[in-house]
């Protein structure tokens, strides 16, 4: 079991789901993969297909239309899957929490393993969150 977990924690492939986001969190997530922060040194890669994903990054407020797609993506992913909610909107709903089309923060829809709050969180905060998440595996 130890070997399996070690391999899993050394090679997390990330799939990025942006809800009704204002794009700030998307840009900060992309910042993590740029040369300055370079998440590939921890084995973290951005993948294009949900079938290859180990981590589902969710940011932005989830509205009623996003909700079905998020559940669909969660069901399509192969199963040891970690879900990370990024930004104030992903964690709690932020300023959209009272909105008419808001369909609940991420953890009301799918189980969430880690929360990274901030509006937007800095790349350093995202990396710190990922490192803490890796520590729990």
């Amino acid at each position, binding site marked *: 079991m130890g*070997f*399996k977990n*070690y*391999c*899993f924690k*050394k*090679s997390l492939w990330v799939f990025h789901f942006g809800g009704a986001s204002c794009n700030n969190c998307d840009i900060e997530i992309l910042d993590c993969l740029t*040369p300055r922060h*370079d998440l*590939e*040194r921890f*084995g973290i890669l951005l*993948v*294009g*297909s949900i*079938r*290859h994903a*180990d981590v589902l990054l969710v940011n932005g407020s989830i509205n009623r239309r996003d909700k079905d797609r998020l559940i669909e993506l969660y069901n*399509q992913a*192969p*199963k*040891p899957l970690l879900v990370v909610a990024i930004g104030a909107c992903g964690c709690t709903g932020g300023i959209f929490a009272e909105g008419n089309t808001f369909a609940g923060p991420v953890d009301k829809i799918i189980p969430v393993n880690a929360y990274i709050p901030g509006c937007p969180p800095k790349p350093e905060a995202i990396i710190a969150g990922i490192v803490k998440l890796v520590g729990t595996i």
Partner: protein
Amino acid sequence: MAVNLFYFLVFPGLLFTAVTGAFLSWFDRKISARVQFRQGPPLLQPFYDFFKLLLVKETILPKHGSPLIFLLAPVFAVFGATMAGVFILLPLLNITSGFRGDLLVIFYLLTIPSFSYIIGALASGNPLAAVGSSREMKLIMSYELTFLLVIAGIIMKTEQKIDLYSIIQAQQAGAPFIGSISGVILFIVGIFCIQAKLALVPFDMPEAEAEITEGIFIEYSGAAYAMIKLTKYIMLFILPAFLIALLMNGFRLDGIHILWAVLKVLAVVLVLTLIRNTNPRVKIKQAVSFFFLWMNLLAVIALVLISFGY
């Protein structure tokens, strides 16, 4: 029988090519990272990726499509790559002398992984995978003729010898073929063929992440995707090794020559990586015309030069 199984499974076969190919895959990623001023992944990263996919992740079967063929296609791909690797490496490492005509067997075995990807992608029933496999088909049609012309050039250079062992012997007795003008042209053409066979960046339209989200591999997960990764590692080692056997004097395994053998493989992979990092993805039409017009033209020029003795 036991010796053949050992050849296939352990020494020049599955285990050796896979481990070497995994390290070459790390080399490729590390050089890419250094080109982009990044730190790059740790040395054992390809092994972590492979074992994570094989042992940890769940394998999802397609609902619409044929699960059996979907699962068998990666196994065929590993089989084809390993067989090609055995036939290339046995003469190259001077273990046996191969058999007459093994060059053509290698040529056909090297296409099995690409065909398996196509079959597996079509069996998954995903429309994006279908787009990817149609692109892969067009890519195969464009580079195979060019690759055959490169091999034809080598056969002409060695006075109609069609086994790998005599080609290597002819070079070790005389000069490596890359030392001549026609050899340099054949090397350039061969590098681009390998680039397309490995689906590295200028020719990675079958698995374009941005437009068709991994294309032919979109539905693969878990152990099946691990098999595909394994095929990719093996191909990353045996195709440069094949080019070295054809043009760059092969390997010699005594004393300091082992270092040269390693450096030759690393140099060819370095060229592939630099091409991949400095070029954008081309459209399928551009790739077809690139191979059909320009690379075939270069290969034919090389053949004409060879017939005049250059």
